[in-house]
């Protein structure tokens, strides 16, 4: 199969979820109740809003992830060519990782890797 048939997998997933939800909504019982549609929280009404500003720690790790994930994308083509290029590729990756390692070390020393 060619890569165009990927759309098939997309459609099958869509049909599975959509079909099952549709089927379930026909055979399942429904009853409306004010209390039932409240957000779940141990039987008491929710206090305050949920969509508020969140702990900055999560965003810090998201930023770090972005940096390193882009580096991973850069390493992939190198990894494929490593065997055929030999010494040149090895020296290149040493330089690349030296820079990358410095970045990680910087984040480490700035306590960006500590969860608060």
């Amino acid at each position, binding site marked *: *199969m060619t890569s165009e*048939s*990927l759309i*098939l*997998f*997309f459609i*099958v*997933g*869509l*049909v*599975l*979820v*959509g079909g*099952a*939800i549709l089927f*379930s*909504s026909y*055979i*399942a*019982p429904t*009853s409306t109740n004010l209390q039932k549609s*409240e*957000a*779940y*929280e141990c039987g008491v009404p*929710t206090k305050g809003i*949920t*969509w508020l500003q*969140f*702990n900055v*720690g*999560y965003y810090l*790790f*998201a930023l*770090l*992830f972005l940096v*390193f*994930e882009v580096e*991973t994308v850069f*390493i*992939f083509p190198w*990894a*494929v060519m*490593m*065997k*055929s290029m*030999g*010494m040149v*590729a*090895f020296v290149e*990756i*040493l330089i690349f*990782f030296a820079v*990358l*390692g410095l970045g*990680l070390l910087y984040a*480490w020393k700035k306590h960006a*890797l*500590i*969860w608060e």
Partner: protein
Amino acid sequence: MEFNIYDLTSFTSSFDQLLMENLSPFWAVAIEMILIGVAILAFYAVVGLYLVYAERKVCAFMQCRVGPNRVGPYGFFQTIADLIKLLMKELIPIKNADKLLFNIAPYIVIIASFMAIAAIPFAKGLHAIDFNIGIFYIMAVSSLGVIGILIAGWSSNNKYSLIGAMRSGAQIVSYELSVGLSLITIVILSGSLQLSTIVEGQRDGWFLFTGHIPALIAFLVFLVAATAETNRGPFDLAEAESELTAGFHTEYSGIKFAFFFLAEYMNMFIVASIAVTMFLGGWMPFHVGGWEAFNNIMDYIPPFFWYAGKTAFIIWVMMWFKWTFPRLRIDQLLTLEWKYLLPINLVNIIIMAFVVLMGWHF
């Protein structure tokens, strides 16, 4: 039409030819698509349901219990009964939820795992799409699932869900780095991203054994990171039931909840498949260089059984993890990734590059 269980390539191509000869091209393609679609659907459902059953049985035996044993022999139809029960449960609408995103989330989670299955080689010739960037594609697609989890948690408008989703996001994106880098270690050794080439390259020995120590380290790192990436215990902070009720899917009921559950098990299956393909030779039989008689005996076992057996073993190891280790705290979790696994991985890649450069691999 010939059927050779050791090489399904001729079977699939002759089947293709048969349809093409008897029907117009449009209908041939359409029928092929429908058949493959139904096959994937059935495969997905069976694997998903029986992984849930396997998990319950494995956990029961590890805790000296019997596990499900009422529905069918040894409780074999328990998960099917559960699925029917969930289908008949009410889908409770949440008043304050973001309706659109709340309903989209299960679709994203399931479709991401479906797309990943497309590139997995199950046996020789049994391979839906053989991308030339196979492993890169699987990594890219399987990481889409986290978007579904984040959407599910955020749109529920529930604090448990939101905390669960945020934890899950931080965890999955962190451990994805380690998954990617440990796979790169093997890509250096194989020199290709195409999964069929990678499997063929392990004809004379799996990469876990031919790659010396760096391949072994990469395998261990991959196992840890993959367990964390699929949100399984001991890394199941996203749905830590004792503190967050059920995490990101607290508000989901009935069949929508079932889809999150199914996706979790399918993701486990996908990462186990990647581990098998990259490190343990995929559908390749176990060969030892030079032992001709031994290799011939091993060749009698069909490739699909090799693949299924190895995948089942990796899945069992991941279940073993879950029922052995206590759950980590989130700071411990992030420390493990950023201060241990990531530096180990970077050094490991350099060692592997050096090994390949010197030609020390077998």
